[in-house]
């Protein structure tokens, strides 16, 4: 499991439509809108490559003026660790 977070920048007027699209995406969770123009999301995917692909899809939404990656955890053993813990 790779978990990432992004700040997505968009015009204030485009935020509702962007939020709608983001909420439909698998693995995406919208957490907060900051300063009316920055959407904070997390993304959960199995691999870095899948995460990159989703990031790329988001970056191409017409509402998005910019996508900034902030955090990514790609620890291969995550699933294994989860099992150990459960």
């Amino acid at each position, binding site marked *: 499991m790779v978990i990432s977070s992004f700040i997505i920048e*968009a015009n204030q007027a485009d935020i509702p439509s962007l939020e709608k699209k983001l909420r439909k995406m698998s693995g995406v969770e919208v957490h907060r809108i900051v300063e009316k*123009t920055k959407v904070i999301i997390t993304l959960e995917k199995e691999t870095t490559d899948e995460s990159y692909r989703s990031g790329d899809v988001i970056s191409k939404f017409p509402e998005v*003026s*910019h996508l900034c990656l*902030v955090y990514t955890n790609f620890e291969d053993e995550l699933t294994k660790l989860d099992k150990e813990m459960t």
Partner: protein
Amino acid sequence: MKVGGNEMKVTRRSLLKASAVSAALAAAGCSQPIVKETEKMTAAAEGKVSVEPDEWKTAVCRYCGTGCGVLVGVKDEKVISIKGDPDNRSNRGLNCIKGYYLGKVMFGHDRLTTPLIREDNMKKGTMDGFREASWEEALDLIADNLKNAHEKDPQSIAFWGSGQQTIHEGYVSSKLWKAGLLNNNIDPNARLCMASAVTGFMSTFQSDEPMGCYDDLDEADVFVTWGANMAEMHPVLYSRLMFRKQSANHVKHYDITTRYSRTSEAAEETLIFRPQTDLAIANGIIRYIIENKAYDENFISDHCQFRAGTEQLGHAMNDDYDETEKGSTANDVWNISFDEFKEMVDPYTLEYVEEISGVPKDQLEALAKEFADPDKKIVSTWTMGVNQHTRGTWMNNLIYNIHLLTGKISKPGSGPFSLTGQPSACGTAREVGVFSHRLPADLVVSNPDHRRFSEMIWNLPEGYLDPISKPGYHTVKMFRELGNGNVKFLWSMSNNWGQTMPKTNRFRGVDDNGKGVIDGFIVVSEVYPTRSTEMANVVLPAAMWVEREGMFGNAERRNAIFEKCQEPPGEAKWDLWALVQVAKRVLDGKKIGDHDAFDLLFGKGGTDIWDDEKNDLKQDQTEVCRNVWEEYRKFSSPHLHENEEVKKLGKELKTSAKQLAPYDEYLKQHGMRWPVREVNGEWMETKWRYADGEQADGFDQIGIDEFGEKGKYDNLSFYKSDDKKPSIIFRPFEDAAEIPNNDYPFWLCTGRVLEHWHSGSMTRRVPELHRAVPEAFCEIHPDDAESLGISEGDMVKVKSVRGETEVKATLKGRGKPPKGYLFVPFFAEETMINNATLDAYCPISKQPDYKKCAAKLEKV
């Protein structure tokens, strides 16, 4: 929370998400605690599980020149996570999407892990004909060949460095070459991207690097991008530009470009001009400002002088250009009056500029009016469109002219800002002086005082550096001489000349005679096999990015440390270790005065990075880096030196205008912008050079106190400039070195794409980046395609008089070229577009022009 149940599994993921959201909120400037975000996260935060790595280490992204800070999560000595560093003031916690693969680029399946020695010279040009070797054997072989070539002809050796070498690696390379071998044939690949910016700064301000910083992006009213596709090449800075636009409705962006790009998409105005005529556009704006008396008279009176320089320079096509009358006087400038300047610029009416540039007069006027408005704060940014230009220095001068005439410089929110393409083009290539004509801290080899100052810092006898008074081979000259058979030994590090040099056929030894490259002895230090390792006699496997400790210096004068986070694979080693090992062998038995040469340069008598007992580089990389830095720092801190002569000469040369802090302070502060000053025991950076004000607020208080004049107009004092006055230099429009004609009717422009870094040697090893842009392409206007019967996806041959390559045509790429214009990126080693490009260079900066030559297109 149920330990041992499903709830814990959710909790762990939630906790990871909590970390992810916390980082994002911090980067977005929001400090509310994440535990309030969701119930699950609250539970997670209260739990006993930890998803934190063993340690977060401080680092800097290793791609572009923005210099984004990152924190690298290390667990069991492996990199497991990366997040933006909110304490790095360059990016404030934000990264572009390439950040996903910062870790992954280190794990390509074909990393070079063992030294390779070529056994079969006839197989040069391929990765065949090598055998694996020990480091001992490889280093001995390199040292023997270097020594032999140097003894036979000192001019037959060369080192090609990089804006991707760390500051420490660049410093050691330069010291070995200049002081150890008394040789100036050392130059960086930054010659290919930043040299025109350097000579622009030096000719206008007599000091390299910008006066402003990224903070200006947050306050500007108008942005002007000149030949810069920031959206793809500097995405984090572009995001800052976009945020400024979103937060203030009046902010406008003008994109001046030869091809509509992603950057143009959000610009209010895009000015598409015929290649090379940016020279005319800038002069048109200048003339408009003068005609409308919109210049800042007080600013000009207090802060500017006018100059003119050698014109009708012709073009550096032939090997002997530098020795011709024009080539040898290209740098010359002389003072003129403002009235003379007005006369010179008078032909550049907006009508005339429209006629030659193709940009409608209305657009030109709208842009000129922005500069003419005294209340507007304007930031100009530029990169390769301006620098990779046969008049690159002139274009840099012209942008400064506009900002100087209007006084829009060195002020928060207003200033010309030269962006850099590589992570340490500034820190390493420019500041350390890994150029054939330079020494550290703006010093140059041709100035006797500069050499004397360097001799004193390096404990060398007086006059010892006199043999390096003449600049050595600049990059194009170096490779031309390699091709002529005059360079017998070449060592390249952190670059890929076999793919990125223009007119590549010649530099790969596949021109008519094949001389030099085939029979020369070539060493390539690399992390992956490349077009350059194919040409090598010895390949040295290098540690990359956080596999060793290092430091980069970015575009806004910020130096930042990256810590070592994991071991390099196999036998791969730190380039600095290899350099010092070769130095030890080459300098063996040599004396400088009464001293052992190696000890004086790198041992206890000098940099102190050698462990005599172990007969090896000191093992502690932090200690090595700190010792290198502290010696380098003496150049810009002469006042701290024990030698009074150093203090006196350093003050005369104003080297502390680039003052640096102690090494550990950079780790503590997550990078700092020079000049860095100690105020009441605290080290403070400078955001705006030459601007008087409190040092604590980012102004250049100490610099002005020491070298400038207080109370001048706008509280500025350009203390490094001749007579404290930067030069407004008249630079005319002169046409391109090669212009499309009947046989070669297209302009050919080359460049990069977002997904791939330079020649793709790292990013193409990442499957997803490779999948995103798997091959090069040739952007072509639909009308041109139709007239040649070319459809989307057809293979075409791009041909110039120098060479050709086959590539897939696209009519709907990200960029939209105008008619008669082709764009081909250079990242793909199978699409050697540089076979077709031109190696003519700016006569002043010696930087070649990759952005324009004549080509034709044939459907395959």
